[in-house]
């Protein structure tokens, strides 16, 4: 469904991604692991059209999207929930959600709104409060809910566990998993919390300095000593590059 081939992305003269190929199928959750500065966020920004690749192709259901404006990428059903949530703090929860469905018809948005509020009942109680007043976990739910308002076929999640207590992270992850399976959309999950990410995802890629270093089924990756090293920093992690 989402297919990325040989993607190169540069900031000015510095290349951040050196030829990356990734696929995500419908109903599949795929995690991207890697340390800070490995290029994970760059990858997501490129998919959502914020950055333009130097070379490479990104397709969604066979349609090339890498030269599209972000608004057209969103219309194609690719929704990016950014790192740090980026909710609109001085807008109400309801207004935040409305903006998630900017392109939808009124009927469709009402339906989606019901769905989001049923999925995250906390948001219903706080519908008319300013989003900035929500707790970290609630804000993450709002960010997710806002993403869901856009009828995603493909959800790009950047660090959803950032700054959240483990129990809240678990709750959010289980909701994501359930949604992906029940509503048949793909999820590309970028996470520092490697173990958690590998628990809910089907497959994973390990990104090191802009290159895919390892990939495979999540169970395999979890057992892989390289992955352990990457996250607790054994000697010479970088030396084999």
């Amino acid at each position, binding site marked *: 469904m989402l297919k990325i081939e040989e993607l190169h992305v540069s900031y000015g003269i510095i290349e951040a991604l050196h030829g990356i190929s990734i696929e995500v199928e419908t109903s599949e959750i795929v995690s991207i692991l890697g340390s800070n500065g490995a290029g994970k966020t760059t990858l997501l920004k490129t998919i959502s059209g914020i950055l333009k690749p130097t070379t490479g192709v990104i397709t969604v259901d066979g349609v090339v999207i890498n030269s599209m404006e972000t*608004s057209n*990428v969103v*219309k194609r059903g690719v*929704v990016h929930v*950014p790192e740090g949530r980026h909710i609109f*703090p001085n807008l109400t929860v309801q207004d935040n959600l409305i903006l998630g469905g*900017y392109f939808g018809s009124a009927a469709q948005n009402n339906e989606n709104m019901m769905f989001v509020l049923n999925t995250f009942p906390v948001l219903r109680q706080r519908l008319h409060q300013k989003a900035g007043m929500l707790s970290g976990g609630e804000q993450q739910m709002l960010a997710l809910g806002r993403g869901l308002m856009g009828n995603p076929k493909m959800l790009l999640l950047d660090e959803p566990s950032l*700054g959240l207590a483990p129990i809240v992270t678990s709750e959010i992850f289980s909701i994501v998993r359930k949604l992906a399976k029940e509503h048949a959309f793909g999820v590309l999950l970028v996470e520092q919390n490697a173990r958690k990410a590998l628990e809910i995802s089907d497959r994973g890629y390990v990104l090191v300095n802009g290159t895919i270093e390892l990939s495979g089924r999540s169970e395999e990756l979890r057992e892989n000593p390289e992955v352990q090293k990457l996250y607790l920093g054994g000697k010479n992690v970088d030396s084999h590059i």
Partner: protein
Amino acid sequence: MWTLIFRGLATGSIYSLTAMGIVLVLSTTNVMNFAQGDMGMFLAFIAFALLMRHVSYPIAIIAVVLIGLLLGALLERGLMSKVRKTTSHLGMLIVTLALTMILEGLAGYFFGTTPLLFPPLVQGAPLQFLGIILDRQDLVSLAIAGVVVLILFIVLYRTKIGIASRSLAEDEYAARLLGIPIKNIYIFIWAASFGLAGLAGIMVAPKLSLEPSFMIVIQLKAFIAAVLGGMNSVVGAVVGGLLLGVLENFVAYYIPQIKDSFSLILVVAVLLVLPEGIFGKRAARRA
């Protein structure tokens, strides 16, 4: 006493209209528009030209607002969108200063610098109501300002494009990620603020005389109103404008010696002591 307050509100409503335009643009596009007043001045001259050709008042107002919307859209597409990409905040401020030079120059070239008498919106003796003296002109301008504020609020808080404008003010990156067509929103914002400027120009022109620099004072007062209101909220701008109008009237009445400098000293004090403005709120930022 009540007369003072009423007059203050009438003057304040004009400050509010101009301040709203400034805040709308600043909070969404990060441009501090020093040309807001002069945009109104330019449109007031156009209104004057129309009225001289015996166009009726209501039609002239509508025409000017429409021209304002169009000019605003053109300004955004033709200039501001390009400036945004290439220059710093300082650069953008200078661009708006350049705009004031151009607008004042054009107005001066076409209409001359001799002050012109702008026909009043309504004629007739002031009304008396419960001992308050109500100037007809003031009443009309308050009413128009009230209607405009109401419309703007409905748009900003109840329509998608309005909510999207406010979201742009908070987090442009997030708005882009949601696929909101930012280009159109910018056009909407500049059009709206140019339209507001036109209305303010028409309200002010009958009170002062029409000349290329007649809106400078209002522009300054609008800045002060915006600062009082905290610079980031349109509500703050409205309240700030009204408050400033009333305060000024009281100061002019009781301590006339300092009436010219009062608001200027007030703004410096507010900037230094309460940089968030009197009603401003610190944005409820994520932890």
